[in-house]
């Protein structure tokens, strides 16, 4: 079985557009939406929910009645999570559940409680299984939740003897992005020809190298700024990175997005042709 992740340092470059379309072209696969902060793939696939699992990402401290407001917890907390007052309280958004305050409290007034930070799901769109999740707003443990989404996708792929797991990754370069690419066979990085696209591309390439993954690049909306596109291509040549393909700016992509459909359903669209070529190249590689 092969795992392929589609990522982009910068958000909104067309990651879900591409993965939604690739999902339509792939056969014998399972999809995983790892953008658990702002998941969008299910909007394209209109799946039927099969399973729902609760995710307990971590613990949070709770201060009980025996608190004497001595302030010892505040001195040791490195996350500014203690709110002083006549009785002390915990700011659940800031608390990382590290246990320091529990150990230091002379009254034994603080306990760590399991805290639910999201749900993850198995759904089905026609014959295609999709694992996805929703992190509760303001939670921090998205790396762990992404690991659960990927585990679920792998389990289903094994049970159903599917050949590929296709992952719609999380944006950025932090724990969410890293969890989306650890251990995958191939990473497709989507870039856009803008000054910020170039900046973010370099950072996600560095991150992908840090995790020692094989990868290639797709330039989306390449004709919006051909000078920047050339810059990206030159940079890739210099760095020995393969450019898998270029997708033109195409109003059809937006129209499909409004209809919540993958653009490749529209055979006439110029973007469709480009995405089909990228898919062919991807199949050769993996």
């Amino acid at each position, binding site marked *: 079985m092969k795992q392929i992740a589609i990522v982009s340092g910068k958000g909104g470059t067309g990651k879900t557009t591409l993965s939604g379309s690739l999902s339509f072209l792939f056969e014998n696969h399972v999809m995983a939406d790892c953008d658990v*902060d*702002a998941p969008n793939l299910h909007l394209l696939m209109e799946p039927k929910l099969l399973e729902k699992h609760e995710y307990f990402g971590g613990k949070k401290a709770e201060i009980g009645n025996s608190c004497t407001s001595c302030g010892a917890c505040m001195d*040791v907390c*490195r996350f500014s999570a203690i709110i002083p007052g006549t009785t002390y309280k915990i700011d659940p958004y800031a608390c990382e559940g590290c*246990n320091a305050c529990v150990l230091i409290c002379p009254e034994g007034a603080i306990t760590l409680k399991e805290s639910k930070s999201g749900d993850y799901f198995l759904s089905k769109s026609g014959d295609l299984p999709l694992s996805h999740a929703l992190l509760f707003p303001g939670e*921090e443990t998205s790396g762990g939740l992404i690991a659960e989404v990927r585990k679920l996708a792998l389990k289903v792929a094994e049970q159903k003897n599917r050949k590929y797991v296709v992952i719609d990754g999380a944006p950025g370069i932090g724990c969410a992005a890293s969890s989306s690419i650890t251990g995958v066979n191939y990473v497709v990085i989507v870039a856009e020809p803008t000054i910020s696209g170039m900046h973010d591309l370099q950072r996600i390439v560095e991150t992908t190298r840090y995790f020692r993954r094989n990868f290639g690049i797709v330039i989306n909306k390449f004709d*919006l700024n051909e000078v920047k596109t050339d810059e990206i291509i030159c940079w890739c040549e210099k760095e020995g990175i393969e450019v898998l393909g270029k997708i033109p700016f195409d109003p059809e992509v937006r129209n499909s997005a409004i209809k*919540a459909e993958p653009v490749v359903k529209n055979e006439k669209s110029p973007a469709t042709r480009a995405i089909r070529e990228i898919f062919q190249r991807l199949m050769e590689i993996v």
Partner: protein
Amino acid sequence: MKIAVVSGKGGTGKTTVATNLAWVLSQKGPVQLLDADVEEPNSHLFFHVKYTEEIDVEILLPRVDKEKCLLCGKCAKACQFGAISIFNTGVLIFDNLCHGCGTCSIACPTKAIYEISKQIGVVKIGQIDEKLTFGMGLLNIGEPSGVRVIRELKKFIDNSRTVIIDAPPGTSCPVVETLRGMDYAIMVTEATPFGLHDLKLAASVVKEMNIPMGIVINRASEDYKEIEEFAFSNDIPILEKIPFDRDIATSYSKGSLFVEEKKEWFERFERLYEKIAGVIV
């Protein structure tokens, strides 16, 4: 006044709104623009920033003094992140799992744990011109969380100026850290079902934090009215609609500000600010 520019979905135009708004307001009075999207900061690309200060953001990692360590395992038991393992031969610390919380030091009965600092990012402070000062955070590659970098950046908030903060995308803890203490949130979204879905998530965070908000619809389209319906039924004002315009997309791609190229938009951003100021005072 402190305004955060937020979006659930990435790439909706947060940086476009933050940079253009900061520039427009700085023509009238002192403004500070801060980029808290520390994983992928982009605001600086639109200006010539003269940096005056660079501050390392560090966390403290535990190290064990073998002479004092009894291999009792209390540190490993206290650690909530699985960052410490005990072997017959010594203690192994996984730096990448460590949150730098200091719990292991508290748990150690022989004070065998000391701490060393490790740089996880930087905060850069500078000036664009007299009226517009600038700050940004940058998380190192391979580091899991930018929250601490954001916290460090926010120490440089200049309350004598109008502050515009470009927030990270999404709805998780870095966004909450950015929003803490803000007076207003501008929610930037795009007119698609994806934009709407992620806007709802982001709006729920902002609402829970009791911060007043308004919406800017980017790449607005007559074909997709659902954002406006959501705004109306939740009593959130629409501050501005920016249509899809190839010129605007092109000026972004080159790293220029479209308010400088399109006079009409300069005035529209001024009005956008007036709508916000009306709510705050």
